[in-house]
């Protein structure tokens, strides 16, 4: 005898609404915080270099995941790089339509081993994998110390 029953009337199906009443705020570890403070105050990018394998993490990290040692050396990273991949979306994170299609891409800044995901400030038709891009930052007095201090990456 199974328990899957056919519903004869729609009114018999009862629903209950609910939500999750919490908010979140994340603290940053030291290296991350220094990266965003440097970006906010001076508009510069930095990376962390693993002494063992030479991998350059942008933003810098506390430890190299491969070598499992602390990453101590910090280097300056130029604001230019290569567009490694991109995609276009018509909706925002909640599924609401955007006023215009938005391109997102993976950008490898010069000298970095890791890629950054961010907005590409060009229509999809003008984007090409491998093209040079440069970061455009939000006006200095409007920066908060967040990834959104970068407005996006424009063709260089």
């Amino acid at each position, binding site marked *: 005898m199974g328990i899957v029953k056919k519903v004869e009337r729609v009114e018999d199906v009862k629903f209950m609404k609910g939500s999750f009443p*919490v*908010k979140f705020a994340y*603290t940053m570890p*030291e290296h991350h915080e220094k990266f965003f403070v440097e970006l906010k105050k001076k508009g510069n990018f930095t990376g962390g270099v693993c002494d063992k394998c030479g991998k350059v993490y942008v933003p810098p990290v*506390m*430890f190299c995941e491969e*070598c499992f040692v602390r990453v101590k050396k910090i280097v300056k990273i130029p604001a230019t790089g290569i567009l490694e991949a991109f995609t276009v979306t018509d909706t925002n994170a909640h599924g609401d339509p955007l006023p215009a299609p938005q391109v997102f891409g993976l950008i490898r800044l010069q000298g970095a081993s890791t890629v950054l995901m961010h907005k590409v400030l060009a229509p999809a038709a003008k984007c090409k994998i491998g093209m040079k891009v440069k970061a455009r930052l939000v006006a200095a007095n409007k920066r908060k110390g967040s990834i959104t201090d970068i407005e996006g990456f424009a063709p260089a």
Partner: protein
Amino acid sequence: MRRVCVIGAGITKFMRRAKETGKELSFEAARMALDSAGMELKDIESVAEGTAPDAFDAMHMKAEYLSDGSGAFQKPYTRSYVGGGTGVFLGCHGWWHIASGMFDTCMVIGEEKMSSCFPHPQAAFLTIFDNFTERPLGPNLVWIFALEMNRYMTKHNIKKEDIALVSVKNHGNALDHPSAQLGMKITVDDVLKSETLAYPVQRLDISPTSDGAAAIILCSEEVAKKYTDNPVFIDGVGWHLDTAYWTDRDLYYPKYVEYAARMAYKMARIDNPRKQIDFAEPYDPFDYKELHHMEGLMLCGKGEAPKLTREGVTQRDGALPTCPSGGALGVGNPIAATGVMKLCELFWQLRGEAGRRQIKNNPRTGVAQAWGDLMQVGTVTVMRN
């Protein structure tokens, strides 16, 4: 099945709010464990990790997010979660890796970062209640503990004063633990005068919310010989779950802890726990829970744990030291990491390396236990030197 050894342990400070993210906390615990064993990451073949559900701190695929800090870069990696029972369950979860013969080494690590949740991590626990029959009543997590504590106290006619002794003991023991969040000297009076949150639960009856991580390293006997001549053995593991219909159960006694203990004791050839176990680290998110769990672990009869506490049996210099670390009450309670903190304590005590917390009666056998979910899960790990 092969015998499983523990050869290293690591732990971060437990704090109300850490600057570091979960990744970094995991790395610090894992790195310390590796250093203590004299190992490098390449010596680790598998990782068994535990952390609370993603919604807790809104980090989706949390195990994957924590994997690099857990030392799982390009390794076989699994995650388990059974509420507060996770930490000690990780002893079982890691044990499978080695005992089965599938791996010679395993990093066992528990991590929790509760502080990202606002206004208070407790609000995230709202979803533990049934969405139809309980949530509309506006419950909060402390209700279930208060209801269980009241039932336990009333059934056995236990006074608050006796329960408060556990809080005094554990906060005091924690003064000797460098990771401790709430090591402090308090009196029974302090506990009884502290704010009533939900009668009979008062503020000093409860462990804090915490951020932190802890790790141990497991390996086969053969591998252990290369690193140490003083390994600790995991001789018994047990886990058990009771019904989610918690209102249909009599909460005065945790049957599920007893069943988990029986499973672990059978494996460890323990048939007289009170005589054959030298010290215990039962889970103590609330002070009455230490007593509740001591009875479930069959370290004494039902309703007898308060008497043992009153008589000083559970003090560090007593006949059955209980929570010599300071427990969740004193050290802190980062949900999935607390139990691993207890496994670390068993390791250090059995090696004679527990510093100022060292039990003097040359302990041979220790038991760690944790509990979780809707008063449901019992997890037990027995270690010997």
